[in-house]
């Protein structure tokens, strides 16, 4: 019952074909059986989930439905503050992050009826692209143990892909939703900057952080986004724009849509199977009626550098206390990345912020005026082996991390929505992925294009052993 979509599970619960308690028990059974090896969860709140599921079933029996997620179990990256549960943010400290109120995104899903199953593993302080974590265990790729799940929302990616839960939340500062979604063969959406409130979630970089859904289907991502999005007085950066119905029109297809494929940069040095899969996907969307436009785009590297510098400075400010008081608790690479931020002057930080503003306007005017969406690979290679990114010198890991996130980070800097959708499997059986990027606050078109590809290609998975 938990192998399908959130939508189908919610429908089954609504008509009482299955109960919320049964759905929660099915998840807990899978977690108990598979998570000791996968390491996707940091906290499983079995007691709380069972209690809430019973309440949801009782409400349903009394004719009360809270919302579209009534009784559906979900889990959240362990940087979302939820009253009564610890929030480690992937550190050694169980209660590393305490907020004044529950994470707004989680609270909105809960108000729509979701049942919290627990908190998901992540890279320490969300600083890591591969999903390794020395404190809570390296999250394993469900498609192949010993390979990366992608990070930093590693547990979210692995848990959804392995069918432990039907959906999850992640956060994305340089690709942290899209990288694990791509590595694990699921859907991950980084919305427009300001579309979803970050209140109640640990910050890594105020300028680049985004909260978004990680699901098995594009429709589920649209469903969760619609429930989470919208202004929040607790997050001054959240937009006051009206939230559209992201499911309305999502199945309308791509006829007439202008889909851009970069001629330069985004396929440079990319694994041949990844590049071929994304080009084939674009061609298929062309056969389905989209107008494919090959176009030249600005070099993303300067934007990546500037976005990375902003993130380093802001993360150093946010997490200065643990660096100052308990540096020995941090993994060496995490500590090093935080320490770098202390070395940047205020002058250079402000110049970086000014550059980002100009480059965002330029990209929107030069690229997103020509096409409705842009497609590109999400990851430059299938998920690497964990040993290749953990048992090597720090310099090498940092270089590979920069390379691995080089196709996702630009869209954090630009603030535009970016959806990662599965794009088949490599010859070695690891997921491939395509990124669909759109205009600011035009998640509806991004989701429509992603859904068209999903319908054309069919769903990926489940991974072996699920």
């Amino acid at each position, binding site marked *: 019952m938990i192998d399908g979509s959130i939508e189908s599970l919610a429908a089954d619960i609504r008509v009482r074909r299955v109960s919320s308690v049964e759905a929660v028990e099915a998840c807990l059974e899978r977690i108990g059986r598979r998570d000791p090896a996968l390491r996707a969860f940091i906290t499983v709140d079995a007691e709380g989930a069972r209690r809430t599921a019973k309440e949801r079933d009782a409400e349903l029996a009394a004719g009360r439905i809270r919302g579209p997620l009534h009784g559906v179990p979900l889990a959240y990256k362990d940087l979302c503050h939820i009253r009564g549960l610890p929030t480690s943010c992937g550190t050694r400290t169980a209660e590393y992050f305490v907020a004044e109120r529950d994470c707004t995104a989680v609270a909105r899903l809960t108000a729509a009826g979701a049942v919290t199953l627990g908190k998901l593993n992540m890279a320490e302080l969300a600083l890591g692209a591969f999903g390794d974590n020395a404190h809570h265990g390296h999250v394993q790729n469900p498609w192949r143990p010993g390979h990366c799940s992608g990070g930093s929302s590693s547990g979210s990616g692995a848990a959804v892909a392995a069918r432990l839960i039907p959906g999850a939340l992640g956060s994305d500062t340089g690709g942290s939703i899209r990288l694990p979604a791509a590595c694990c063969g699921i859907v991950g959406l980084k919305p*427009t*900057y*300001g579309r979803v409130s970050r209140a109640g979630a640990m910050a890594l970089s105020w*300028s680049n952080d985004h909260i978004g859904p990680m699901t098995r289907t594009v429709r589920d991502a649209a469903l969760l986004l619609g429930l989470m999005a919208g202004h929040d007085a607790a997050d001054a*950066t959240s*937009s006051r*724009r*009206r939230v*559209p119905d992201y499911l309305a029109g999502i199945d309308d297809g791509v006829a007439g849509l202008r889909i851009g494929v970069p001629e330069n940069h985004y396929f440079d040095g990319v694994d041949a199977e990844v590049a071929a899969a994304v080009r084939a996907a674009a061609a298929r969307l062309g056969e389905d009626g989209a107008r494919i436009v090959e176009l030249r785009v600005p070099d993303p590297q*300067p934007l990546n*550098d*500037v976005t990375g*510098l902003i993130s380093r400075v802001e993360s150093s400010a946010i997490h*200065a206390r643990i*660096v*100052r008081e308990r540096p020995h608790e941090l993994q060496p690479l995490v500590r*090093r990345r935080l*320490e*770098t931020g*202390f*070395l*940047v*002057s205020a002058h*250079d930080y*402000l*110049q*970086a*912020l*000014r*550059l*980002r*503003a*100009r480059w*965002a*306007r330029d990209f*929107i005017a030069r690229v*997103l005026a020509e096409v409705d969406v842009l497609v590109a690979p999400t990851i430059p290679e299938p998920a690497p082996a964990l040993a290749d990114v953990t048992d090597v010198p720090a*310099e090498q890991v940092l270089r590979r991390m920069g390379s691995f996130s080089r196709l996702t980070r630009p869209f954090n800097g630009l*603030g*535009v929505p970016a959806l990662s959708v599965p794009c088949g499997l490599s010859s070695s059986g690891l997921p491939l992925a395509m990124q669909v990027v759109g*205009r*600011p*606050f*035009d998640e*509806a*078109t991004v989701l429509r294009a992603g859904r068209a590809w999903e319908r054309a290609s069919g769903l990926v998975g489940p991974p072996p052993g699920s």
Partner: protein
Amino acid sequence: MEPRRDPSVAAELASLIGAIERWAADLSLAEEPSRFAAALEGAAPPESTS
């Protein structure tokens, strides 16, 4: 606090900051960080009234 002075980190940063200085050289006086959010709002699709 006293930051750690790892020579390889310092070299990486020096190169990056040098590049930022070059890119920022022709920024207009009117450019400010808040224009980022304005660019996103300004390029958003029209809000439907339905």
